[in-house]
């Protein structure tokens, strides 16, 4: 009898003091052999041509293919700065180290880009071009520690979308832009310190 009362009392005290349970049991984790969802890299802004400043009858901006001019115009290799450009490229701000236009643009085919070794690269594959100089950043990008992403950490359960280099870096002036920060949360620590004074 006393033992039972004691047990009931102990249980009551323990339930007041805390808990004996362990919570819902863990469920099986990711299966390393399971098929993985895809990782999609956000498409860079299309570089289908250059704005002409004209509009068609439906109000759409008219663009001219790069080759419209550059197939007949010989490249002027002395032009290295954006300010020196005229006509369609007037006002282009160039702030990318000491690169010149033809460091990346392909003088043999202006509808594509060009690696340092002369290999032609499509505009859609421009990350390869960035990577040839920015190796550490590309390495970090490949390992998920550079460049924003959304979606699933567990690719066996869902897909992921990743930023392209050009989502954040304008190739002509790649420095990350200065931002206005969002407002801070209340500063509880300092607020309390001040209120004690």
């Amino acid at each position: 009898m006393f033992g039972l009362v004691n047990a009931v009392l102990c249980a009551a005290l323990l339930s007041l003091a805390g808990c004996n349970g362990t919570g819902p049991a863990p469920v099986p984790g990711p299966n390393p052999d399971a098929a993985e969802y895809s990782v999609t890299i956000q498409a860079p802004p299309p570089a289908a041509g250059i704005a002409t400043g004209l509009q068609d009858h439906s109000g759409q901006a008219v663009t001219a293919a790069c080759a419209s001019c550059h197939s007949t115009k010989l490249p002027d290799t002395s032009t290295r700065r954006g300010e020196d450009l005229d006509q369609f490229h007037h006002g282009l701000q160039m702030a990318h180290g000491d690169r010149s236009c033809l460091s990346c643009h392909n003088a043999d085919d202006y509808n594509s880009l060009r690696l340092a070794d002369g290999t032609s690269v499509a505009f859609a594959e421009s990350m390869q071009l960035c990577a040839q100089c920015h190796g550490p950043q590309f390495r970090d990008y490949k390992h998920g520690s550079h460049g924003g992403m959304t979606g699933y950490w567990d690719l066996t359960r869902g897909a992921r979308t990743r930023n392209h280099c050009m989502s954040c870096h304008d190739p002509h002036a790649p420095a990350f832009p200065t931002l206005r920060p969002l407002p801070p949360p209340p500063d509880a620590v300092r607020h309390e310190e001040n209120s004690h004074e």
Partner: protein
Amino acid sequence: MSEQGSCGSGCGCSGDGGGGGGLSRRTVLKAAGATLGAAAFAHAVAPLTEWAADLSMDEFLQKHYRELTPDQLTQVLERIENDTREQYGREVNVRALPPQEGVSFGYALNLSICVGCRRCAEACHEENNHDRDSHQSYIRVFELSKGSIDFAKGDPSYDHPVPQDDKYYMPVQCQQCDNPPCVSVCPVEATWKEPDGIVVVDYNWCIGCRYCEAACPYHARRFNWKAPEIPAEDINPDQGYLSNRVRQAGVMEKCTFCLHRTRDGRMPACLEACPTGARVFGNMLDPDSEIRWVLANKRVFVLKEELGTRPRFFYFFDE
């Protein structure tokens, strides 16, 4: 059983108080004492009855989260959904996702590319159903002078375009310590460490003593001075019992690495909001995960390592 006329206390007196025929002094004193006692008791428990006025009997008698049977847990989740509908006018889905075997969460932050834009703190504010009025968030971003690592000297309230050339930015949130001082000080075991590494709070078991807030060297815990005010349309309906369900007044709360998302395989809200990719999250038990690559290849450090808290939140610089 007792003799006729005995007062019943075994003293052997005649019981009629000296033959006066009225009340004895003893009886009067007893009655007065009982009345006073009852009044004092009523007064003493008055705060309890006031506090319990907006607390249902089910809620009051609810067991600790870890002692709930699956059926009880289902009922509790349903009750919380109903309460949220009544109090906030919003249909929500409260889940209690269990930890996964073979998953141990880790988080790392690249200080070289954080620009201090506070998108993470804002995402936390919205994701975790924080009070809109106070603009609460589990993340504080410190602006620090280059060359200094002491975030106590940092400024968490800066308001100018970022990043400044001579500054860097350090977001600080719960470090999900493996030796958590906040858990050891809790007098009622309302906070504990889950098998996947996340330190959680049972908001229905917490007594609001704030010991954990005092014990945390990172000031990662927050106290709900009042029930959060959130317009119905702003409430995030994807909720977890141990994470972002709307908390009541008088309880502690903290970052849970968004476990209602991360135990579903998704990234935490602060990571998705980061425009630069400074945040790296994943399973530290998966050798191919991004977090493991960072731990193996970057020079990582933890905040206040000398305290022996063993955080699961790591910081690193690129160079």
